């Protein structure tokens, strides 16, 4: 679009991005190098492959255990659940999908929020869980994030957000889209009160979550290999028939293009957040 019309300077690309691992692969088999691990082995390495450095997904509660000082996390807004404002029914009713997700994950929705300490620094933590309906953002995710911002303002502590999301939750229709401006308004209030937000993007952070709060941290970092794109690779490939670069939408590509302050391997995340909390402490 440099000439004002026509195509944009798409980089020269040779290959398509790798196909995602087939669904039948064991969750503890590394998609990077094929190594296989026991649960306890992966837990010891913070679910990072010791062989090739691949970052496996981390559930919200495990993430909190990894980051927060032992026993410091105090969860809030546990009681919130999604309603079904549209009486949404695709091949199955939304309420059924919700009930199933809750049984499968033990979570009320796709985000867990509360106060915590990281390396003795006070903060509010908002951690998403991809296992709950693809980490999609509906009214509950928006509301819990907003309340975390409000608690951060009141307490005068920074907000640490760890995102993992496929985007807005279609089953809540336009109200899901409205969670974008809603969370953005909350960050505006937090910033107005002098509060800070640190955003950690984990695999994947896409769609409406990337296009709202996840991008608006005072500091934005991502885990290695995390997909962070507004449109997913499949949509881009199908819509544009462009060849995707190998690192399409990945943290490494975003870092190169200036959309990230850093790529932080999981093992360094806790000390990094500790340092940032000390810097933003008031």
């Amino acid at each position, binding site marked *: 679009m440099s000439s004002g019309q026509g195509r944009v300077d798409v980089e020269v690309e040779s290959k398509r991005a790798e196909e995602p691992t087939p669904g039948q692969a064991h969750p503890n088999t590394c998609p990077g190098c094929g190594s296989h691990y026991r649960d306890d082995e992966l837990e010891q390495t913070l679910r990072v492959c010791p062989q090739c450095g691949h970052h496996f997904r981390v559930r919200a509660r495990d993430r909190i255990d990894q980051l927060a000082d032992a026993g410091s996390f105090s969860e809030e807004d546990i009681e919130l659940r999604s309603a079904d404002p549209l009486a949404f029914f695709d091949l199955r009713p939304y309420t059924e999908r919700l009930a199933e997700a809750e049984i499968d994950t033990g979570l009320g929705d796709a985000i867990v929020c509360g106060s915590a300490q990281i390396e003795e620094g006070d903060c509010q933590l908002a951690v998403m869980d991809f296992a709950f309906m693809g980490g999609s953002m509906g009214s509950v995710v928006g509301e819990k994030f907003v309340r975390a911002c409000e608690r951060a303002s009141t307490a005068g502590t920074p907000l640490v957000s760890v995102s993992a999301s496929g985007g807005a939750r279609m089953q809540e229709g336009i109200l899901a889209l409205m969670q974008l401006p*809603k969370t953005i308004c909350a960050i505006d209030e937090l910033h107005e009160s002098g509060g800070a937000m640190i955003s950690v993007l984990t695999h994947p952070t896409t769609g409406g979550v990337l296009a709202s709060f996840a*991008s608006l941290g005072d500091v934005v970092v991502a885990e290695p290999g995390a997909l962070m794109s507004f449109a997913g690779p499949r949509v881009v490939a199908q819509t544009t028939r462009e060849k995707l670069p190998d690192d399409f939408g990945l943290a490494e590509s975003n870092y190169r293009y200036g959309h990230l302050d850093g790529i932080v391997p999981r093992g360094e995340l806790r000390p990094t957040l500790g340092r940032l909390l000390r810097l933003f402490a008031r």
Partner: protein
Amino acid sequence: MANEDELRLRERLSKLGAMKLLRGTKLSGELARLQDQLDHLQADPSAEEIWQSVELARHADRPYTLDYVERIFEDFFELHGDRGRADDLALVTGLGKLGGRAVVLVGHQKGRDLKERTKRNFGMAYPEGYRKAMRAMALAERHGFPLVTLVDTPGAYPGVAAEQHGQGGAIARSQAAMVRLRVPTVACVIGEGGSGGAVAIAVADRVLMQENAIYSVISPEGCAAILWRDAGEARKAAAAFKPDAVHCLELGVIDGIVAEPEGGAHADADAAAQLLEQGILAAFEEIDSMDPSDRRRERRAKYRVMGVLASV
């Protein structure tokens, strides 16, 4: 449940009746027509009408932003470029007089024929477009000009370069810029309000929709492809997520509906433009006299309560 339906429709109608925005736009005629429509809705689960809105919102002859600009703005001067790297023609910005005073306009722009559609990228903006919009918003703030945005996009462009240039972040920052403004802001969805690419320029004190516009989290085809695994089920998807103006008003997402001429905006662009101008000016009347910092606070308060929650 016939009774529940009836209650909801009555509520809907009373909401519409109480709306100031339809003032001066053949209010009683409108209400009678809506009553008819709602009576019809009552009989049928409304899937047909929703799909009709989808088709009208995308109608090839539907007026676009610049069609309205030439009809309702005086002394319009277009502002080009994001001052960074490009001029994205899928999104137009400019200065013009509306109702006798200077305002800043930001709007998506589709193309009429194939050549223009390509040039305008079918109204799908790159991050450069949203950065151009932010530049125009900053200009409005600097000079105290009210902001009008016209929303009409299938969505932000899903391309490799768009991602490399930071599509997600640009959409987030454009919304954040709109939240912070102290000048009065009115947004109107005039065609397709497609997801993040639409809300990027639609965070306003008053958000309106034209009668046959749609505003949605995903396109009907996209939703059908994911949930039904068949893009051909777009009608079913649209009926399920209800992107039409009446449902958006009912859900508290928009503040008012702007009437269209009989048959839709494309049937009479001049009349549609007049109704749009009246709707926008009426909305400004409500917010013009507010204190600038109250305006920002109330804007945030409006979005604070969006969503529907349950608890255990």
